[in-house]
């Protein structure tokens, strides 16, 4: 297990470096010179060259990369070419907001999907089980931002019980913080929950047909007891894979949902950076998102090993 962890950690680090090279390369390949953007179309070539020198963008790409990556390792994302503000603190401020948004959405999805999916599997011959199946199918077809707009319409515009957007830091007012996040969590979680329900249902259905559940019943357990004691952990193995993929999807979904609900998260920062042509900011945010996805995969792989002794 320790050896596996060390190996897997090495893979994580190596893939992060590769990802950093890729992110840097893509940004470098984009047309547009930060110095020209900063000075506008009427700038003299001398002024542009001077600014390039100050930005450091006149150096060879390899040197620029090492400089940027060396900073990343120490938590320094560089200084924005556009606003002259350091990028690191902006990202770390917003990373927390996005993390809360994504994890909350995931929690909503899990709370919905595990009981509903299991119920739908156990009662797959009954109308209620089929109804859950059908409802989850509809849920899958709805994009998160549309779910968000519908939720705003119902709860904020019609019923007026929740704010339609905005974000209050938890330190200022925990109650308002929670109220502000409920709709975003729901709009992310409902859709992912619908997808997850189907996976949970099919995983539990597969497990219900396994011989070891019959063995458990031959020992004297009832259907439910056998499923509870021997089925759910086995069913969780394929579900964990999907969970990892979904977390990555949620991270991307959060970019859009943050826009809908005016939440100052990473997605919001990314879109601002794009709109303001703040290349270094975009580069930093994308790098953080990529690293987050790599980290999620790492956690999924390790969880796998903890769950299934056959992999050890």
């Amino acid at each position, binding site marked *: 297990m320790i050896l596996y962890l060390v190996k897997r950690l090495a893979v994580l680090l190596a893939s992060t470096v590769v990802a950093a090279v890729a992110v840097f390369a893509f940004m470098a390949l984009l047309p547009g010179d930060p110095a020209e953007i900063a000075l506008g179309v009427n700038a003299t070539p001398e002024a542009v060259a001077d600014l390039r020198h100050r930005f450091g963008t006149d150096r060879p790409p390899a040197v620029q990369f090492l400089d940027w990556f060396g900073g990343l390792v120490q938590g320094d994302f560089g200084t924005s070419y556009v606003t002259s503000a350091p990028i690191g603190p902006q990202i770390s401020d917003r990373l927390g907001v996005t993390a809360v948004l994504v994890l909350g959405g995931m929690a909503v999805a899990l709370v919905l999907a595990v009981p509903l999916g299991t119920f739908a599997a156990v009662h797959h011959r009954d109308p209620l089980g089929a109804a859950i199946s059908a409802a989850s199918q509809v849920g899958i077809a709805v994009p998160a931002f549309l779910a968000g707009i519908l939720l705003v319409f119902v709860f904020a515009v019609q019923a007026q019980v929740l704010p339609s957007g905005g974000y209050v830091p938890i330190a200022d007012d925990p109650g308002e913080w929670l109220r502000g996040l409920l709709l975003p969590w729901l709009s992310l979680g409902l859709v992912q929950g619908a997808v997850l329900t189907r996976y949970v249902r099919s995983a539990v259905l597969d497990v219900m047909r396994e*011989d070891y559940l*019959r*063995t458990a*019943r*031959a*020992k004297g*357990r009832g259907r439910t007891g056998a499923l509870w004691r*021997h089925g759910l952990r086995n069913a969780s193995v394929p579900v964990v894979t999907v969970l990892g993929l979904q977390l990555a999807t949620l991270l991307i979904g959060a970019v859009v949902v943050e826009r809908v609900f005016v939440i100052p998260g990473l997605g919001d920062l990314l879109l601002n950076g794009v709109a303001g042509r703040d290349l270094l900011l975009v580069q930093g945010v994308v790098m953080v998102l990529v690293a987050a996805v790599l980290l999620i995969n790492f956690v999924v792989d390790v969880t796998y090993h903890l769950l299934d002794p056959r992999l050890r």
Partner: protein
Amino acid sequence: MLTVEGLHVRADAVELVHDVSFTIAPGERVGLIGESGSGKSLTALSLMGLLPEGVTASGRARLGERDLVGVPESRVKDLRGRALSMVFQEPMTALNPLMRVGAQVAEVMTLHGRPRHEARERAVELLERVRLPEPGQIARAYPHQLSGGQRQRVMLAIALANGPELLICDEPTTALDVTVQKQMLDLIAEVAPALLFITHDLAVIASMCERVLVMYGGRVVESGPLRDVFTRPRHRYTQGLLAASRLTPRGTRLPTIAGSVPPAGRFPSGCVFRNRCPHATPACETTPALTGDGHAHACWHPAD
């Protein structure tokens, strides 16, 4: 001790097992022979209350004074693993892959009220009893670390854990290597309290059982002491089955039973074997009853 009277098993409109009756006395070892699709496994599963979804049993089956068929799950499940246990055909998938072997053996004891620490100790003793080497180490292993033969021994340990009155074995050695089969059979013969042994392998039955039931098309077509049935089969199906399993001199054709087993629900009316039977006459359109004391058969034209 086990009394089965008029057992029927149905899946919707299709009758899979028809009017099966037999008894097993304490300590007796009874074999149930038949081809795939003859209803032998369903008969066993209905005694355990483990029929697949959508399949139901009716009739009467009693273990001692306790009913096994037609009673709510909550009543039967208490008997399973305690008074009555079963070893299945496929050892590779019968154990939970995520749980240590010792815990899976201990579980059947804690379920029926034994304290946890005691069950753990006894699990290791049971693994030793089914002749697994290094039982302490095996108890800590996961199923995938064991061979098929070892896993089947674990299943046997689970089945024996609470000292059942009857052990049901459904083709317990079919999935094992030939070299391991013999050891497994000897072990079952040694430890089984009373045994219902299901197989399609006549040689295995001959070495294990005192009495046999021959099933075909969901019915018992012949039953009696092993020696009588094997040396003087009366039903034409049993006769064909024995002929097909006998060693034949080199160069002669292997005797077979003509045709193949029809799918469930497609057996002929009357005698279920008549479409494959060389002796069938119009009389066979009427269902023959299972008649005869001791050595019974259900055939209008029995062999002498």
